[in-house]
């Protein structure tokens, strides 16, 4: 389930919704990303998506992750529009039979969302507005999942 929302969300309510009635699930991993307030210094974020296109792109990667990690189910909720300091901005949950698959599925999906998902993001503060690119760390995190030649070592 992929959902873009202008309204704030509460991660606990989403996990309650996702975990209800999962009698054949052994492991659920959730990730919540928040905009840190940085003691009042941080700025609001403004997220732009391309409605239809953005959900479809996330859906494709979610389906691939589901197959790759044998996940039973996935949930992605992402704020769009203005997100204030201290507010949750993204929630991902993965359900699987065993815990390693659930961890890897959620971790993988977050790396994708942070580096390659079709969002355009700017920070808005007293000093004006500034468009944000992914951090180098975000690209490195995402590259951990790229297919490797057989026998090559995984990146640490």
């Amino acid at each position, binding site marked *: 389930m992929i959902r873009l929302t202008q309204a704030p969300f509460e991660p606990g309510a989403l996990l309650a919704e996702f975990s209800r009635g999962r009698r054949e699930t052994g492991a659920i991993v959730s990730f919540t*990303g928040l905009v840190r307030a940085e003691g009042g210094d941080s700025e609001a974020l403004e*997220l*732009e998506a*391309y409605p*239809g*296109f953005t959900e*479809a792109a996330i859906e494709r990667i979610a389906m691939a992750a589901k197959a790759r990690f044998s996940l039973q189910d996935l949930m992605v909720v*992402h704020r769009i529009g203005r997100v204030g300091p201290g507010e949750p*901005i*993204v929630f991902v949950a993965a359900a699987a039979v065993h815990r390693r698959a659930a961890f890897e599925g959620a971790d993988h999906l977050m790396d994708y*969302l*942070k*580096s*390659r*998902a*079709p*969002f*355009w*993001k700017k920070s808005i503060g007293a000093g004006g507005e500034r*468009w*944000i*690119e*992914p951090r180098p760390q*975000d690209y490195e995190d995402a590259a951990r999942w790229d297919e490797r030649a057989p026998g090559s070592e995984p990146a640490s």
Partner: protein
Amino acid sequence: MARVLLFGPLSDIAGWRERTVDPAPSTLKALRAALSAEDAALGEALARPGVQAAVDKILVRGDATLANGAEVAFLPPMSGG
């Protein structure tokens, strides 16, 4: 008629986010040329590496023909969420 959508910093450069071009140019290349003729700064921004184009919400590489009523989106490098 074609609808043109700009995302991220592209709309700041152009000063608009969405407009129609009527009649629709027959190809993506012709649309780029028309936009560039009106606004050289936008034309230059659209030609930057990493700027992708989607026609009717499908990413296209290189040129593409545009049907009447096509929706063309120009997508600068994505920030992620």
